[in-house]
């Protein structure tokens, strides 16, 4: 991904109506965004849908980005919102339609992800959503603690605590797997 300073300039040009900047943002940020969704839901089709939904939402609320502020926290805050909204809608549909037909489980959709994404998703699957988000942003997307705190609407202390708890859980799980194997 390009350095954040370039993203800030691109965001300002996007707000000014520059189509080249809009396309550049889509191409530089979609990979990490897509990975963010893949880690959570595995199915490429749903990740594609969420990616499109996220960009549409970003387009609608692009005026809420303040020039000079970091771009990634703004972007991932919206992406998390889109994902939550998506789950909520799916749950609502499932609740309404369960009586007449059986819907396929989203989380159990066939693993179309790369092996590494699937391994990562499996590793993180037992964690609570908030911890999974923190670990994904910190370690997979290489965001700073400050950026993750902003993206998740939390304090820096809370992010550190979630990351620590997630590591403890992951270590326990891995050591449990070793003992079993």
């Amino acid at each position: 991904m390009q350095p954040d300073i370039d993203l800030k300039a691109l965001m300002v040009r996007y707000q000014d109506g520059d189509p080249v900047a809009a396309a550049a943002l889509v191409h530089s940020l979609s990979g990490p965004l897509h990975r963010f969704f893949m880690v959570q839901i595995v199915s490429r089709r749903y990740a594609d849908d969420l990616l499109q939904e996220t960009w549409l939402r970003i387009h609608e609320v692009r005026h809420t980005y303040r020039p000079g502020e970091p771009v990634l926290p703004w972007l991932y805050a919206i992406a998390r919102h889109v994902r939550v909204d998506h789950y909520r809608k799916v749950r609502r549909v499932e609740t309404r339609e369960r009586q007449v037909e059986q819907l396929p489980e989203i989380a159990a959709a066939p693993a179309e992800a790369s092996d590494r994404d699937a391994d990562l998703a499996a590793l993180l699957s037992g964690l609570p959503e908030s911890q999974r988000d923190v670990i994904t942003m910190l370690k997979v997307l290489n965001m700073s603690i400050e950026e993750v705190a902003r993206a998740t609407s939390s304090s820096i202390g809370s992010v550190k605590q979630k990351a620590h708890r997630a590591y403890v859980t992951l270590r326990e799980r891995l050591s449990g797997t070793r003992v079993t194997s």
Partner: protein
Amino acid sequence: MNGPEPEEILNRAAGAPHEVDPALLARISDSLVSGLRPVRPLPPAWVLASALFAITAAVALAGGTALGLKGIARLNALEITSIFGVLGAFTWISAVHCVAETTPGSRRRLSSGTVLAAGSLVLAGVFALLFHDYRTTRFVHQGLVCLTLGLAHGLAAGLAGWLVLRRGFAVNPMAAGLAVGTLASLAGVGMLELHCPNLETLHVVVWHTAVIPVSAFAGVLLARFIRRNN
């Protein structure tokens, strides 16, 4: 032999390339670029927070003046300074928090629940320290009148505040509803401190402070209703 540590697995995953379908990217780019127009970014956070602060103070002052400044007339200088100092600080913190809740990726030092709980407790503590009349004359009746008046002013402040925040985007609508409800309630509390001449300790601590959580809860319910119908 030891297996991999979590960091190793995560680092390997972070280093792996991740491709997105180029056709999908082209589709997204095309949809964004078609009819792309310039937009005006949100004003700086301090401008929005100042506007919210001014609205809250204006609603409190207008309400207190219209109903009669009988409450503040009974307060001494220490009571006026303490109560309105704490109210002013709480209002500013709530205003800043409301702006953060409606701007994605903003820095947060406190959660909406913490702002509500800490602010309410501090205000109730100040009331308890300042007033020492422990009678309870017509406790429920007078209390309900104050609660209703406070909430009505909170509603007015909430509607005016919405005009300031309407261009924002709440990534967590419930937290934003809680924050806006808390801020709006402070217009009601401010009005009560200007107007209400009843300085009985329990009346002020219970009923004046109760405006804050009730209004915050109403904000959450409203946010939930709006989200369900969107």
